[in-house]
């Protein structure tokens, strides 16, 4: 492009690097603090460089019960993983079937069904939190993985996105498959699924992060430490003590909590951007 001014390129990079550093700083300081001992951290200001207690701090978190909770970080991370995978895979599974039915079948009340699902699009569980707790308790699902997962699956984002994706498939494909005598399940398995791979991967990234980062619902639904997730355990480390919080453990736990979703987002960057921009269209 001819109208670019090369003189500005240096400035552009400089400003971007400043932005990257500012946005990275909180995580960097948490990382360095997590490698110091509690005594080190009482000397004033958060250290900018690593200490030598890193292994000890992380080992303590992973192997011993966490103060105030009584379960180890390993258990908490495991619970988070179950919940995030349950939400991502569960939501994709039920939405896939529903979107497939709405796009490829004609049946009475089809539009009504679509709207019934569509209404849930913008209303997160937070607005109906008290009665949702009542319903889940009635089924005896408080403090179970199912109870933590199901209310968060009840939304239309994925159905909506997959419907758009299916509608964009060429209709010649459908006719060809019919001529070959493919039934609904064959068509789904051999044509629709392989062709929507990218969209499914994009949805998975968004839903995994969504599930892993949930706070209010698991806080209520998992009221024993056995089902507590990594994200909700952090408050125990920081807020419940009268004295100075054990920041070396809190920052270490923060790092452990942040790592899985950040790895997913970096490793699947292409799908992430696509999933995010598609999901909101």
């Amino acid at each position, binding site marked *: 492009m001819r109208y670019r001014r090369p003189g500005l390129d240096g400035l552009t990079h400089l400003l*971007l690097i400043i932005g990257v550093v500012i946005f990275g700083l909180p995580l960097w300081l948490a990382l360095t603090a997590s490698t110091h001992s509690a005594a080190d951290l009482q000397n004033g200001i*958060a250290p900018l460089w690593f200490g030598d207690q890193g292994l000890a701090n992380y080992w303590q978190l992973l192997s011993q019960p966490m103060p105030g909770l009584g379960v180890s970080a390993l258990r908490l991370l495991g619970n988070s993983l179950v919940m995030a995978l349950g939400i991502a895979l569960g939501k994709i599974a039920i939405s896939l079937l529903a979107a497939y039915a709405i796009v490829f079948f004609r049946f009475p009340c089809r539009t009504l069904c679509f709207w019934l699902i569509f209404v849930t699009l913008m209303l997160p569980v937070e607005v109906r*939190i008290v009665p949702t707790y009542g319903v889940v308790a009635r089924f005896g699902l408080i403090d179970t993985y199912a109870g933590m997962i199901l209310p968060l699956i009840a939304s239309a984002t994925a159905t909506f996105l997959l419907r758009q994706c299916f509608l964009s498939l060429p209709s010649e494909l459908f006719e060809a498959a019919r001529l070959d005598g493919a039934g609904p399940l064959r068509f789904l398995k051999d044509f629709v699924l392989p062709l929507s791979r990218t969209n499914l991967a994009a949805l998975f990234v968004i839903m995994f992060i969504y599930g892993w980062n949930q706070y209010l619902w698991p806080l209520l639904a998992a009221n024993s430490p056995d089902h507590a997730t990594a994200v909700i355990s952090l408050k125990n480390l920081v807020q419940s003590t009268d004295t100075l919080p054990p920041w070396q453990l809190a920052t270490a736990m923060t790092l452990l*909590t942040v790592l899985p979703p950040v790895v997913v987002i970096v490793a699947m960057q292409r799908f992430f951007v696509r999933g995010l921009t598609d999901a909101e269209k």
Partner: protein
Amino acid sequence: MTTFERHSITPWLLLAPQLAVVAIFFFWPAAESVRQAFYVQDAFGLGERFVGLANFQHVLTSPGYWHAFGVTALFSLLVAAGAMGLALLLAVLADRVLHGAKLYRVLLTWPYAVAPAVAGLLWLFMFDPVLGVLTHALAVFGVHWDAQLDPGQALALVVIASIWQQMSYNFVFFLAGLQMIPASLLEAAAIDGAGPFRRFFGITLPLLSPTAFFLLVMNSVYVLFETFATIDNTTLGGPGGATRTLVYKLYEDGFVGRDLGGSSAQSVLLMVLVGVLTFIQFRYLERKVAY
């Protein structure tokens, strides 16, 4: 699209799981919210009494509710302005570079993967009274930082943590929007003698306005719901309700205060608020499509 015609049961089987989940975990609780909003429970949860609109009247005339409403509105405004301003600046810069564009994108979008609860915690650490890097930096300028006592500082803490987290979401959308602008348009303007600023304000910004409007609504929805976790890990709604948003108040009244009727009325009001936001969103998007 042509469809499978001779299957009348299959579509219902396919729809059943989603319809069941939505019916049980969405419509049932939502209906229950609406019903309970018209009743008052006795202290032991044994009986209830129909009270008409009394719960709504009570909520809408209580200063605490309007205070929470004001906090939420101010919070939304600050986060939208901060996160969108920063994201637009960084997206314009990232769109300009030829080398390392992908790396910058990764390094500026990762905070999206950070839970709001964690974002709150990271900034609580930055502003810790003893250890906080920013607490010490502010002290150099003579500012005494104590978010546990100062209402303005408490709000600033959660706003900064939210901007930090929400910037990456806005960045992704602004960058996508910038990449959709045809280069020929900017090139033509350049040939006509428009400088970089003229091009930005005359072409880029107007073409980004639908994205910006969409983000404004999404940022408000984020502040309404997601910041519960940020607040619960940092200021706990205090001091003196300075960071008590509508959802935080709903949680406190419903689960801590056990005021079923009052919290249900608040739920219904929230649904109406989100409904209005969604409606505005769709009306606007429709108009954009028709354009």
